[in-house]
């Protein structure tokens, strides 16, 4: 292993990422077909996205809005004048025989993103239409299939392709860049940012070079990473593969490689040499797109809070710790919930604890998302107030969470229904403690003989007897008094 470590410090990794962001418009980029996911095959199609002869594309203004918003959030220059081009290649998922994309005048120019304290430059971001989907029949994959079936529901769905400069130097940083970008597009509300479902797709250009070299090595393009973890794994695998090639005196070949998450390896994609001769030319069916400053300013004014800003605000406004704030930023819905609930309570620490602890835990175990939960921010704030005023114990509150999530009922209503209000009546608790003492003469004798560790046992029994309703502080005090008698 010593030599492998030596080899890793001998080379520098150079990574550039190309991320396709599926824009959350209601309709496609150039026609009025719905973009709704999960429709039956070819239900979301029309003569335009099917590429029937004689049809004309008309640009979706919302998609342009989204592209500009993304450009602003990524510190890009927004082109005052941009245009569309045809990218030609033959594949059955592309009905027209060309994809409408942007070649030399992308809508967003140079920008950057701060990742792990470093600036990663963004080369450009451009609008383009998505392709359809193929199902290969008669075999598990393309190889051996007898024919293919084409579903063009996705053809024409707007994408924003965001290309980074080769500024990334480790797989960890690549992953952080992708995650940061995902958070931004989700905060902007322009994309679901779901790698598993493909609303976010990430390709990585990876090469290595001797430490200190200024020229880039030959790169390989990695595709088919369906999670943030697989982005990191695929890059690690590729770096190791290239080091081994170079160390054995061979040369890295420029190629596209398909990552296989199950095997943890990648393999070259078969492709014809000339596949990359796309013969771009300006799309004659679309006018150049003029973006006046007023349009950009209008969107600047509507810019929602971005992850970095929320992080600073959560720490500033509510005094949250770095960790708590970063979790609430990472999981946007959780952060939104917090913000709303914070209008009803000032016990922010309790709020984050409940949200990140029991509520997240219950949602996870019941395989639900926060959106599916009926729990309202106000109801959670009220429950916290009940705990703080000793109306219910923390143990009872924990028991209430699943019901609150499932039914949307208030803690007060549930406590009433199930008779769970905390008992703080001294007389009643004294009775319970006496009962426990009477039921366990042996333990009492041992305790009185000096085995003080048993105190917890008595308290536990008393809580159990009260079905969790007894005020724990009172139980502690009274049990102590009774046992010492």
């Amino acid at each position, binding site marked *: 292993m010593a030599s492998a470590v030596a080899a890793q410090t001998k080379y520098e990794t150079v990574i550039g990422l190309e991320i396709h962001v599926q824009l959350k*418009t*209601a*309709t496609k980029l150039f026609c*009025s*077909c*719905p973009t709704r996911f999960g429709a*039956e*095959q*070819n*239900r979301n*199609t*029309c*003569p335009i996205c*099917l590429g*029937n002869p004689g049809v004309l594309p*008309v*640009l*979706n*203004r*919302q*998609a*342009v809005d989204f592209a500009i918003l993304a450009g602003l959030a990524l510190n890009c220059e927004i082109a005052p*004048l941009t*245009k569309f081009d045809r990218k*030609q*290649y*033959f*594949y*059955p998922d592309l009905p027209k025989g060309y994809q409408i994309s942007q070649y030399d*005048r992308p809508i967003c120019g140079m920008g950057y993103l701060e990742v792990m304290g470093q600036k990663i430059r963004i080369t450009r971001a451009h609008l383009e239409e998505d392709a359809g989907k*193929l*199902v*290969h029949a008669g075999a598990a994959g*393309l190889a051996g*299939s*007898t*024919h*293919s*079936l*084409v*579903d*063009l529901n996705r053809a024409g769905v707007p994408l924003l392709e965001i290309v980074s400069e080769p500024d990334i130097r480790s797989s960890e940083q690549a992953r952080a860049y992708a995650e940061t970008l995902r958070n931004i597009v989700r905060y902007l509300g322009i994309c679901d940012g779901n790698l598993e479902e493909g609303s976010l797709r990430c390709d990585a250009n990876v090469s290595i070079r001797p430490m200190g070299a200024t020229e880039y090595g030959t790169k390989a393009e990695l595709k088919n990473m369906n999670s943030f973890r697989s982005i990191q794994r695929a890059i690690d695998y590729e770096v190791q593969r290239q080091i081994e090639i170079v160390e054995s005196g061979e040369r890295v070949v420029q190629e596209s490689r398909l990552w296989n998450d199950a095997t943890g390896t990648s393999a070259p*994609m*078969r*492709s*014809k040499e*000339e*596949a990359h*001769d796309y*013969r771009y030319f300006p799309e004659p069916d679309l*006018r*150049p*797109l*003029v973006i006046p400053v007023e349009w950009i300013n209008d969107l600047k004014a509507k810019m929602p809070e971005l992850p970095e800003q929320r992080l600073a605000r959560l720490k500033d406004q509510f005094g949250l710790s770095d960790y708590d704030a970063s979790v609430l930023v990472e999981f946007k819905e959780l952060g939104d919930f917090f913000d709303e609930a914070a209008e009803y309570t000032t016990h922010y620490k309790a709020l984050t604890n409940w949200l990140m602890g029991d509520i997240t835990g219950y949602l996870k175990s019941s395989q639900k998302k926060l959106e599916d939960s009926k729990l309202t921010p106000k109801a959670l704030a009220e429950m916290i107030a009940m705990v703080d005023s000793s109306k219910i114990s923390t143990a009872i509150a924990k028991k209430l969470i699943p019901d609150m999530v499932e039914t949307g009922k208030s803690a007060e209503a549930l406590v009433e229904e199930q008779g769970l209000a905390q008992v703080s009546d001294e007389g009643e608790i004294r009775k319970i403690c006496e009962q426990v003492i009477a039921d366990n003469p042996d333990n009492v004798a041992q305790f009185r003989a000096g085995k003080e560790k048993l105190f917890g046992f008595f308290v536990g029994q008393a809580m159990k007897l009260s079905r969790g309703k007894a005020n724990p502080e009172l139980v502690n005090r009274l049990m102590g008094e009774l046992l010492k008698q």
Partner: protein
Amino acid sequence: MITEETVSHVAKLARLELTPEETQRYTQELSKILHLVDELSELDLSGSDLELDSKQPTLFRADEVKQAYDREHLMKNAPQEEDGFFRVPRILDEGN
């Protein structure tokens, strides 16, 4: 000047199979056409750019769903259909 290699290359990209005679003929014909188009480059177009073509306002569409055709109707144009999919011949290469 257009060469036979260029014609062969473009034909390959366009998935066209040309005989040697056809390649020769198209090379000559395309050369003539390109020569004609070349005359345009003698025009003085200084000061004109994309901007010249951008004086007309861009046409936009509002992001509203409209569906004028059902699948059954659209499928009538398909040479082969299977269960609501377009059926295409076996694909020999990943291509892209």
